[in-house]
């Protein structure tokens, strides 16, 4: 018997402010441990899909549904989705003054597990994870993302990913704006997450560098609010070779 999918997106339609359609009939199946790559030109709706899966109230689902481990999450609050095992690495992580990274992660861990956090074990895990990501220990005491450079923010997202161990992580352009070394560090972190938890991934990216250490199972090309082509890892190369122009000529461009 086939394994039940982790994420099932069926005929999903999404609008902004319930009037402007932005995603059209999205269908997606993600199983445990799979790595999906989502590519597409700017404005295709990739980030919108990530936000919608995570339940950002700014985006209204006007049709279809989102199932996670068989449960309908379409109308569920964001925190419930996180508790079910969904994670989104933000393209532009927000700065939250006055809350240290470590106290934020402790709070999140407690919220996700409904268990008190064992401080020593938590601290040990945090220190180890910081090391994996070549991050200085002081990041744990700094306010969440406040004054972090673009690269530090992205690393901090991967730090959260590793600390919170979700079942499915959506990484929204985690590699953009990173130098070569940082991309390597981040992709090491992603690999670690993938291996340790058999964690599934949806990676939104324009580049291939971040994918080098990962075995890509599926590639989706998104254009103008639709997934227009799905293939295996080789599709990534094809897209990088040929660009999106041919797709846009065929499926239209978002104005």
């Amino acid at each position, binding site marked *: 018997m086939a394994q039940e999918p982790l994420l099932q997106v069926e005929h999903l339609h999404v609008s902004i402010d319930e009037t402007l359609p932005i995603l059209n009939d999205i269908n997606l199946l993600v199983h445990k441990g799979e790595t999906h790559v989502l590519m597409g030109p700017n404005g295709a709706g990739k980030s919108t899909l990530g936000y919608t899966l995570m339940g950002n109230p700014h985006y209204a689902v006007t049709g279809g549904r989102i199932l996670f481990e068989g449960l309908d999450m379409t109308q569920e609050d964001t925190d419930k989705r996180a508790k079910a095992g969904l994670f989104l690495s933000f393209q532009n992580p*927000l700065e939250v003054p*006055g809350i240290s990274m470590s106290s934020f992660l402790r709070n999140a861990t407690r919220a996700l597990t409904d268990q008190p956090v064992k401080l020593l074990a938590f601290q040990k895990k945090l220190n180890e994870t910081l090391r994996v990501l070549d991050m200085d220990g002081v990041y744990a005491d700094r306010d969440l993302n406040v004054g972090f450079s673009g690269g530090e923010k992205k690393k901090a997202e991967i730090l959260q990913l590793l600390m919170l161990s979700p079942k499915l992580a959506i990484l929204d352009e985690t590699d953009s704006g990173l130098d070569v070394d940082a991309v390597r560090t981040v992709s090491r972190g992603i690999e670690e997450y993938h291996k340790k938890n058999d964690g599934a991934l949806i990676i939104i990216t324009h580049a291939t560098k971040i994918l080098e250490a990962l075995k890509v199972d599926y590639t989706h090309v998104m254009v103008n609010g639709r997934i227009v082509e799905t293939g295996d890892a080789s599709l990534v190369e094809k897209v990088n070779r040929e660009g999106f122009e041919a797709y846009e000529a065929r499926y239209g461009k978002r104005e």
Partner: protein
Amino acid sequence: MSDEKEALRRQDSQSMYDFKNEESDADFFREKEGLTKEIVLRVSAEKRDPAWMREFRLKCLKIYEETPMVDWGPDIAGLDMDRISSYVRHKEDMKNNWDDVPEDIKNTFERLGIPQAERESLAGVGAQFDSELVYHNVRREVAEKGVIYTDLESVIRGELDAERADGMDYAGMVKEHFMKLVPPTDHKFAALHGAVWSGGSFVYVPKGVYVDIPLQSYFRLNAAGAGQFEHTLIIVDEGADVHFIEGCSAPKYNVANLHAGCVELYVRKKARLRYSTIENWSKNMYNLNTKRAIVEEDGVMEWVSGSFGSHISYLYPMTILKGDRAQMEFTGITFSGNGQNLDTGLKIVHQGKETTAVVNSKSISKGGGIGTFRSAVVVQKSAKKAKASISCDSLMLDSISRTDTIPAMDVRSDDADIGHEAKIGRISDEAIFYLMSRGIKEDDAKAMIVSGFADPVSKELPLEYAAEMNNLIKLEMEWNG
């Protein structure tokens, strides 16, 4: 007026601060409502004032009657002085042994955690219940350094001089400083204060004495329809250093209560005073409080302030930087919820050369609450190279609340360096979404953002007060009044 009453009626409970120990007539003496010469004389007789103080009270009453009502801030029409009793006291006198404090009062303070705090981390504690201090105590090692922390009245009557016989003229010291910094002509409620003041503290820290743990005063206004008019006079002598903390709370009633205290702070050469306040008056309180500090050469005045309570507040601590290189620092937060109009701010007067001021003010409004921050910086001609940097940052938690920032500057010197920065913003939906995407519930996410916003203030407070402040923020956040 009826809207005002309705607003008061809608107020929800303030959890641990809102409990009433009913005051029975047998145990309490209560002056009748209103303000007349007879009442002022009776309060004066109660206090066994020397003649100068009795005369002073009468003079203040006259000024009060001649001074018009303030008309520039939040509406205080709901405050009817004919319905305010200016003096309520327990029939027992002040104690310096906690066990001797009357049971009902002791229970109140114990629920507020006052005696524990003293045992754990304070150099001295004063507790005022309604109009009178019920308890005052200073650690022996602090007292032995010559630090005075006691009620004002006994000092004025000369009892402290007689008791200590150390050659110091404390009675004279009080007479010389009392309502000199805040004269009764300052405004109507300063005059009212002068007429019926009762309770509060006198602190004197001798030259060069460093008090390493804070002194604390706690004010509880327990009686309905009463006023509290405590006077705090602190003199930090040359090179001395002290931290004074005041906490205020009251149970909620459906009638107006009034707090018109007065704080006068004298910071001598090279001395440092930190004055911290956590105020959580109930939401039927008119908090019309006056605080003022004067700082001499190389002296440092630090204000830390958390204002959470009251229905209406007028509160603008003023600092006069008199001596050269005198400094002041202000770190404060105001949280205005439903039915609250908190008009706060500060005033700085630069007189000495190279005087500096740093202000960090935060304001949170929620549920239709109104927060106004007024700052006034005056740089006099003598204040060469004065420097002031003011930053105020406001966070509105919804679209029905309101925040205003009103800066005023009066610069008479040509080389002053004055900066004013104001930021006003709504709580970010994206930030809430970000925290929720990590499993944190919406309410908790908001509370985290708000306490993070308040963090620069909490950081300035001793641990247990920071915890109390965070608790107050949590209460305000949960409170859907």
